[in-house]
């Protein structure tokens, strides 16, 4: 599913260059739930950007779903983000001018799918996260937890192969954090591949696998015995 081969990422500033990721190699199989942990500045955001096809590595290969993304152009990257990856962000990142349904439809709007089918798929995903009665509300009318559910529904709507969550509970209180984590666990148990970036140990412990980054290097890769890894063999 995901394979990083000796990824390096440099940031070039005026005076010096910053080595953000150092020779990262990593393999994630379909159906896994992986937490990427690390303190701020450890390179986990950079890694998430690369895995999320928002940025390209400076050197190395990134194989996603059988294709080397490292050589993609902007159009192909946008296409991959649209079809293969579902994003959940810390700040929800919903569009304030659109209602809930329109927000969830948006990823499908960039595909050639009939309008009616888009709507059906979006409603289905909103039912899935329990927000079927909020279709016509606007993001600012919802609580943080509800907003994040909308974001999850939006991440699911295009039936992506990978769900990429960047600090999904970072802006939530403990109750709604529990809500969202249960939702993620459900998704995992249904066979979705999850990649959660977090700095909270409790979140990481609820994933089957945890990877720790420190100063741009991969320093730990462990399986959580308490969480049963759910690897689907056939890709």
């Amino acid at each position, binding site marked *: 599913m995901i394979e990083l081969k000796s990824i390096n990422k440099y940031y070039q500033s005026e005076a010096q260059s910053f080595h953000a990721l150092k020779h990262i190699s990593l393999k994630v199989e379909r159906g896994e739930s992986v937490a990427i942990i690390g303190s701020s500045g450890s390179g986990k955001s950079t890694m998430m950007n690369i895995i999320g096809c928002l940025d390209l590595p400076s050197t190395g290969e990134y194989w996603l779903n059988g294709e080397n993304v490292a050589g993609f152009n902007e159009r192909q990257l946008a296409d991959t983000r649209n079809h293969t990856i579902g994003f959940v962000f810390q700040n929800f990142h919903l*569009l304030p001018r659109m209602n809930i349904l329109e927000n969830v439809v948006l*990823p499908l709007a*960039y595909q050639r799918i009939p309008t009616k089918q888009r709507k059906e798929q979006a409603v289905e995903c909103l039912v899935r996260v329990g927000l079927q009665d909020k279709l016509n509300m606007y993001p600012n009318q919802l609580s943080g937890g509800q907003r994040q559910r909308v974001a999850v529904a939006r991440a699911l709507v295009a039936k992506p192969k990978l769900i990429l969550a960047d600090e999904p509970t970072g802006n939530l209180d403990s109750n709604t954090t529990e809500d969202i984590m249960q939702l993620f666990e459900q998704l995992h148990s249904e066979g979705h591949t999850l990649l959660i970036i977090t700095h909270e140990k409790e979140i990481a412990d609820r994933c089957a696998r945890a990877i720790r980054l420190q100063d741009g290097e991969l320093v730990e890769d462990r399986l959580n015995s308490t969480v049963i890894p759910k690897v689907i063999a056939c890709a």
Partner: protein
Amino acid sequence: MLSLYEIFRLSWLSTRKNGMRSVLTALGLIIGVAAVITVVSVMDAFSNRITAKFESLGNNGLTLSAYTPLKHQIQGRLTALKASDLDIIKRVSGVRHITPVFFPTNGAIKSNGYESFSQVYATTEYYQDVNQNYPTQGRFINRTDNLKRRKVVVLGVDTVDELKFHDDPIGRYVQIEDEWFKVIGVQQRKGKLFGLSQDSFAIIPYETGRSIAGYHKEPQFFVQFSVADLNQLEPIKRHLTREIRKNHQLSKGQQNDFKLETAEQMMETFNSISEGVTFVLIGMVGISLVVGGVGIMNIMLVSVTERTREIGIQKALGAQPTNILLQFLVEAVLLSVTGGALGVILGLGLGQLVELFSGIENIEAPTWAVLLSFVFSATVGVVFGLIPAAKASSLHPIEALRFE
């Protein structure tokens, strides 16, 4: 790919959300387009009227008048027609209704203590046929009036009004150059041309005119005549030009010292002037539209900056650069076309207002002007929306997402 409807919806949402700002942004365009529509429709109505006027002159009418080039005018060398020119025209076959006209005096017409500064024409009985203008009361001057140098006058309706006759003006007396003239007729109303009355005149017999002008030499007259067959107009013009050149003893290569014009030519002259005026005005207004476009570009750039994060989100969700480009471009065009539409409405309203106060009738915006306004507004939107839209579409998703 976002459907066009969705793009429109998105653009409409953001235009509406910033209602006041959108209106102010489009104001330049609104005023520009309103100005175009008003100017064009007023000019159009104006020139329609003039055309109708010239048509009523009869398009088989010709005018022969002396022509002095500006250079000679400055030198004080004025040319004049000769009395024999009139005989030349009379001898040409196919010509009918010839009448010489001159202005015997610039003095006032007086009656009963009232004055009118109407133009006095000295002419013959054929004047009414050449100009297709006949008396509604009384009669026109006739051959005998002319031969006998009778002191009779035919007045225009506005002159009649100015002199304030309390009852029927026929048979009353008016004073022109200290001579008393008997009113024998009132001509039918012609209306206004260039906002000036065409019914403020007094017509006296040609010979009577010469007598009150004091017979000093030959008067500065011009000749109005019409041709029987319109198809013969050009040959007659050529023939006459040749004959009159001969009569004026102009050598080869020398410029004509006279002008032979048809009503149609005068109309063309007028039309070319009015077109010129229209284009100059449109040009000036065009500049204001460009200024309006810059306003739109400015606000679109602000809008792109404001929505940087949204653009980042859309890109993260898989929006192609073209999606973003189109979205902002449509927004700019929506803004400019809405402005254009408001401008058209405003322009139509202003046209009606002009109609109300100026007395020019039937002010209507021509379809081409309305279409042109829309096309131009849309073009302004595309042209000035392109830079902000390109800026939006080229944003890097990560940087856009991080934007605070």
